[in-house]
C-alpha cells in the first residue's frame, strides 16, 4: 500500500460509508413500507372513508363504546397488577435464593413462548365449567382479566430484573446502617432506580392487554356488552362484513399503540439523559 492509497482512503471510506447507509436505509424503509406502513395507511384511509362524523358514529355506538371501555378498564387493571406483582417477582428472583430459582426464572417467559389461544384454553381448563378447584369464571369479566394477566406476566418482570441486578447494593446498606427501615430503603433508594423499568413494563403490558385477542376468544365467550373486548369487536365486525366499523375501532387501537410506544421512548430518553448527567 502506497502513501497515496492511505491518504485517499479516508474520504473514500466516508463516501463508501454514506453509500452503505443509503443502501441499508433503502432496504429497511422498503421492507417496513411493505410489511408495516402500507397496511397501516390502508387502515387509516378506510376509517376516514365516511369522514369524521362517520368515524365518531361508529366509535360512539353503544356496542363499540362498551367494548372499548372494557378493553381500557381491563388493560389498566392488568397493567397496575403487573406493576406490583411483576416488581415483586423480579425482586424475589434477584435478591432471594432458593432451590429451583432458575426454573422459576425460565418459566416467567412461558407466556411469550406459548400461543395465546393455548393460554386461553389452558386457563379455561382450570377456571372454567369443569374446574377441579371449583372456580368457574368462564365467560365473565374476571376471566378477561385473568387471561390478560397470563399473557402480560413477563413484561414488568423482564424490564425490572436487569436494573435490579445491576443496582449497587452499597447505597441500600448505607441507608440501613443509618437507621432507615426496609420499607423506607426500598421507597427512597431502590424504587427511584427501578421506576423507569417498571413504567416501561407497565406500558408494554397495557398495550399488549388492550390488543389481546387469542387468549380471549375462548375464555371470554365474546358476549356483546359484557365480555366483548375491542379486538374481539373488530373481529366480529370483519366477519359480518362491516369493514368501516371494524376500521374505526381498529384505528383507536392503533393510536393507543403509537402513544404507548412514544411514551416508552420518552421514558427511555429521560433515563439515559439522567444517567449521562450522573456519570461524568
Amino acid at each position, binding site marked *: 500500500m502506497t502513501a497515496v492509497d492511505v491518504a485517499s482512503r479516508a474520504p473514500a471510506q466516508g463516501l463508501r460509508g454514506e453509500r*452503505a*447507509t443509503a443502501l*441499508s*436505509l433503502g*432496504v*429497511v*424503509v422498503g*421492507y*417496513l413500507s411493505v*410489511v*408495516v406502513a402500507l*397496511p*397501516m395507511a*390502508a*387502515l387509516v384511509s*378506510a376509517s376516514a372513508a365516511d369522514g369524521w362524523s362517520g368515524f365518531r358514529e361508529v366509535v360512539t355506538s353503544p356496542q363499540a363504546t362498551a367494548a372499548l371501555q372494557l378493553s381500557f378498564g381491563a388493560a389498566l387493571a392488568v397493567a397496575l397488577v403487573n406493576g406490583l*406483582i411483576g416488581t*415483586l*417477582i423480579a425482586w*424475589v428472583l434477584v435478591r*432471594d435464593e*432458593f432451590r429451583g430459582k432458575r426454573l*422459576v426464572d*425460565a*418459566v*416467567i*417467559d*412461558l407466556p411469550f*413462548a*406459548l*400461543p395465546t*389461544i*393455548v393460554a386461553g*384454553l*389452558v386457563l379455561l*381448563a*382450570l377456571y372454567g365449567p369443569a374446574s*377441579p378447584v371449583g372456580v368457574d369464571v368462564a365467560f365473565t369479566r374476571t376471566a378477561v382479566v385473568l387471561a390478560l394477566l*397470563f399473557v402480560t*406476566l413477563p413484561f414488568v418482570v423482564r424490564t425490572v430484573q436487569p436494573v435490579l441486578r445491576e443496582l449497587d447494593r452499597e447505597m441500600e446498606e448505607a441507608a440501613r446502617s443509618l437507621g432507615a427501615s426496609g420499607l423506607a430503603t426500598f421507597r427512597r433508594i431502590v424504587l427511584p432506580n427501578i421506576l423507569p423499568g417498571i413504567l416501561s413494563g407497565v406500558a408494554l403490558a397495557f*398495550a*399488549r392487554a388492550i*390488543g389481546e*385477542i*387469542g387468549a380471549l*376468544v375462548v375464555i371470554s365467550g365474546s358476549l356483546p356488552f359484557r365480555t366483548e373486548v*375491542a*379486538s374481539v369487536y*373488530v*373481529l366480529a365486525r*370483519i366477519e359480518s362484513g362491516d*369493514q368501516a366499523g371494524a*376500521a374505526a375501532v*381498529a384505528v383507536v*387501537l*392503533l393510536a393507543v*399503540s*403509537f402513544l404507548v*410506544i412514544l411514551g416508552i*421512548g420518552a421514558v427511555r430518553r429521560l433515563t439515559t439523559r439522567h444517567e449521562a448527567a450522573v456519570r461524568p
Partner: protein
Amino acid sequence: MRNVTTLERSAGRHALRGIALVYLVAVLVGPLALVFGRTFEDGVAPAWNALTTPETLHAFRLTLVVTAIAVPLNTVFGVVCGLLIVRHRFSGKGFLNAFVDLPLALSPVVVGLSLFLLYGREGWFGAWLERHDVQVLFALPGMVLATLFVSLPFVCREVVPTLREIGDEQEQAARTLGANGLQTLRRITLPAIRWAIVYGVVLTAARCLGEYGAVAIVSGRVQGQTETATLRVDERYDSFDLRGAYAISLVLALLAVLVLIAMTVFQRREETA
C-alpha cells in the same frame, strides 16, 4: 437485636417468595399441568389419534411453512435494521425506531384488518390483484405477510443493545487494515452478535408458531387448506372436541417449552460471550 432483625427479614423474604410462587402456580403452571392431565385422561392412543387426523397434520405443516418463510426474512431485516440504527447516522431515526417497535404494541386483529383492507377485493390492490389472478388473502402470501408483521421487531431489538455494547473499535481496526465493508461484517460484526441473533430468531419463531389473531382474519380458515395449528385449536374447541383441542395445544406448549430451553441456553451464552 440483630437476631430479631434477621428473623424479621427472613420472614419477610419467605412471605414475598410465597406470594411470587403462589401467583405463578395459579396463573401459569397450574393450568398447564391440568391440560397435560386432561389430554392423557384415557391414555395416549386417543390423544395420538386426535393429533394425526389429516386436517390437523396439514395445520401443523402449514404453521411450519409460514414460520420457515417468515423467520429468515425477519432475521435478515432485523440484522440490517439493527446495524442501521446503531452504526449509521441519518435523520428520522426516532421515527424508524417507533415503527420497528409498533408490532410489539399493536393488536394482531388490527394487523389482519389492515392487510384485509389493502389486499381485499375492495382494497387498494384488490382490483389489480384480481385482474392478474394473484391470490394474497385467504392464501399463503397473506398469512406470511401477517406473520412477518407481528414477528418483525424481535431480531432487531436483540441485536441493537449488543451492537451498542461491543462498540465499533474492532470494526474500525479491520477497516484500517484494509478489509472492505462486507468482509468486516462477515468476519467481525456478525460473529460478535451471533448469540443475540440466535436469541432473536428463537423469539421470532415462537411468535410465528403462535400467531392467531392476524392469521385468523387473512387466512379465511379453510380446513385442510389455510388453517394453521393455532386456528385448528380454535376450530376443535368450537366443534366441542376438547381432547383434540387439548392435544394440539399440548404439542404447541411442548414447542413453547423447547423455545424456553433455547432462550435460557442462548441468553447465558450471550451474557458470558
